[in-house]
């Protein structure tokens, strides 16, 4: 668990809980092979409006989801690549609709 200061440094003063939830639970469920397959199939489904966007950023999103590093470590590594955990978490597509 990160400290409050670390959390603010990563997610900002006004954190978006939906973004953080997609990161936290996405990472949790990525560990379950069957769930990982379902998530990928959902995000790549032609009906998913974020499909194209996910395809453009798939490598980065998958790297974050499968990482075993702490939030702070991921964030620091992403900063070195001119992005941030907050930015990549925003790119994790949502799950919704009857086709999941």
């Amino acid at each position, binding site marked *: 668990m990160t400290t409050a200061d670390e959390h603010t440094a990563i997610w900002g003063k006004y*954190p978006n*809980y939906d973004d953080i*939830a997609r990161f*936290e*639970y996405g990472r949790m*469920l990525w560990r379950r092979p069957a769930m990982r397959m379902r998530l990928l199939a959902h995000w790549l489904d032609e009906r998913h409006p974020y499909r194209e966007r996910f395809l453009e950023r798939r490598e980065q999103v998958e790297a974050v989801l499968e990482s075993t590093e702490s939030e702070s470590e991921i964030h620091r590594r992403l900063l070195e690549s001119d992005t941030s955990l907050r930015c990549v978490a925003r790119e994790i597509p949502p799950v*919704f*609709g*009857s086709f*999941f």
Partner: protein
Amino acid sequence: MPRRELRDPKQVEDWLSELGDLLTGPGALTLIGSGGLLWHAARRGISIPLPENSMDVDPVTDSEEVAEHCYDAMIGSEFEQRHGWHVNLMPDYVLREFPAGWEARTATHTYGFLTVVVPSPDDLLAPKRRRNEPRDRAHDAWASAVGLLSPAP
């Protein structure tokens, strides 16, 4: 035809029972928001509906199996078509919005393999009181009217 949206205390307990029956091993969740208020009402046998219906429940969990079932109940899911409301998983960071010591004031109940932890009604209302939108005030007034809140010191 099921009731649309979430307003009756019993709806929350029915969902938790359903979720508990689905689990194959122990799991836990912390229920916050108006769903938590409805849970307290249900446990006390209160059937007065929540004003300003809710569209979702907000659980926090560290259980993979619980999270997986919650993903099956997200917005637009078959679950939502059946129940009229959906599950919106929240990150554990949101629990820091509660007043200090909230963990010691929770209520707990078990449904099959599922352990449900719910902050006290007063703690659940603290973030709503800070936000103070009309809907939050309506939920606060409802909690007070049905007797969920602690007497003022």
